[in-house]
């Protein structure tokens, strides 16, 4: 692999990073806070490509890159041609729920129904036993997944850094569940706290439930993940 090829590869890798960072594609793979870093890395790689081509023209020769460098073609293909979707119900039901340890709870915001993140609802339902949810209706958004018995869940993946460390937040659906639910469809559920709970067979975590009042299909949100802090 001579330096011209290296310059082209650097340019392609930098280019797909810039593309992913600018179009919002990056939100399928990493948390939103990493956007400036992704863009900066893409820009540096493009500059490195230009510098490599410039110096290769002025002074040909130099030592070649090892063959393992060809692997850099793969992420370029994956991002440009396939652009895999955000993690969905398949990954969610294979992993244990993220609701395993209590977090610090803040007072419930105003509004009825009040819009909560899935992890916020699950924490309040499990560790506060729904005390802060008494007498209120909540709105949560996630995608549909089914376990082996066919119990429907509303799921949102919780991200700390990138999709490799994503953990599902599972909330069971009960009461007025829509009769036809395709897996991976996004739903906005408005409902109330219920004391019903289940144990996640994968990691022994707790799965709270929600009494569905109204379930409305919605478009997938720009950021399909939730993250803490």
């Amino acid at each position, binding site marked *: 692999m001579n330096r011209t090829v290296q310059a082209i590869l650097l340019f392609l890798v930098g280019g797909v*990073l810039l593309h992913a960072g600018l179009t919002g594609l990056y939100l399928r793979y990493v948390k939103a806070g990493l956007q400036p870093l992704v863009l900066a890395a893409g820009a540096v790689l493009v500059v490195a490509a230009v510098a490599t081509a410039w110096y290769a023209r002025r002074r040909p020769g130099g030592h070649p890159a090892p063959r393992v460098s060809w692997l850099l073609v793969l992420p370029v293909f994956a991002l440009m041609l396939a652009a895999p979707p955000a993690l969905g119900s398949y990954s969610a039901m294979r992993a244990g729920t993220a609701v395993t340890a209590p977090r610090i709870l803040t007072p419930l915001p105003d509004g009825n129904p009040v819009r909560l993140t899935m992890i916020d609802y699950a924490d309040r339902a499990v560790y506060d036993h729904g005390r802060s949810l008494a007498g209120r209706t909540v709105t949560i958004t996630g995608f549909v997944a089914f376990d082996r018995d066919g119990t429907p869940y509303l799921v949102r993946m919780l991200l700390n850094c990138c999709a490799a460390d994503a953990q599902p937040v599972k909330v069971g659906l009960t009461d007025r569940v829509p009769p036809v639910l395709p897996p991976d469809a996004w739903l906005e559920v408005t409902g109330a706290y219920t004391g019903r709970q289940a144990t996640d067979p994968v990691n022994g975590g707790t799965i709270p439930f929600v009494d569905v009042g109204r379930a409305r299909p919605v478009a997938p949100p720009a950021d399909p993940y939730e993250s803490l802090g």
Partner: protein
Amino acid sequence: MAAIEERRNLGETPGWNVDPVLVLTLVLLAGFLAQGPVRRLLSTPVMQSWMTVFVAVVVQALPFLVLGVLLSAGLAVFVPPSFFTRVLPKRPLLAVPAAGLAGAVLPGCECASVPVAGALVRGGVQPSAAVAFLLSAPAINPVVLTATAVAFPGQPRMVVARFAASLAAACVMGWLWQRLGRPDWLRPRAHDHGAGGGRGEAFWGSVRHDVMHAGGFLVGGAMAAATLKAVVPASWLHAAAGHPVVAVLALSALAVLLSICSEADAFVASSLTQFSPTARLAFLVVGPMIDLKLFGMQAATFGRGFAQRFAPVTFVVAVAAAVVTGAVLR
């Protein structure tokens, strides 16, 4: 001459002298034409989740790799080698812990520390001190320790234990290298700075070199990590958690296979609640020191002979440090 030299370096047969630009063009064209069938092949859920995790690891690690590569190029080009030999203590007994503590100032994950440690070795720093820096930097810097504190609320002991065990393991590895290491095991790839070239050429040459080497191995490690995540069911871990010794070994092996960034691994560790604190500490200590993508990057930076000897010893020392620290701080 240059072409013959190039072929020998690539380890290719003499008859193979196709223009690499042509190869790249053909590869890209083939990928573009085959996208329809490939998309159908990739539409099964298991392949999609494999691809998503693969792309996620690469997109997440590349910015930190680029950060480390820039730092490394800056160190190599703008800091005179005499600086490090002046700053670090002469005696290895002191230089190793000093370099280990110095790791606390590199605010990144393990992808950033490999190229920087490579630049230190090329700059004339004792290999034992560079080893201590390489191992401690990704685990004890403020960003990672803060993430650990956030992931384990109300358990400051986990942060202390992570800091102590990681620093201890890094120092032990440095001293071990001082006693047992042989110079010919360590073959840092010489950088082609081009005699007579200016500083700009040297800087960008170093950046290109490090990205091409470590980046290729990073992609390989990401593929391995994605395969593990997509294929092995999480319920296997549940079974391992019951036995104290098996639990420690299982989470240590998981840290190697998952190759998670050290800034994120604390959150994964905190979700593995069925495991003992010592097992989770082992996960946090082993992961930043040795995993699949790190092994590839170390082989690219220091030579395969180094990585093959270094990786198993690092694993054993890191597990031992975690177990001892876990026993002391329980």
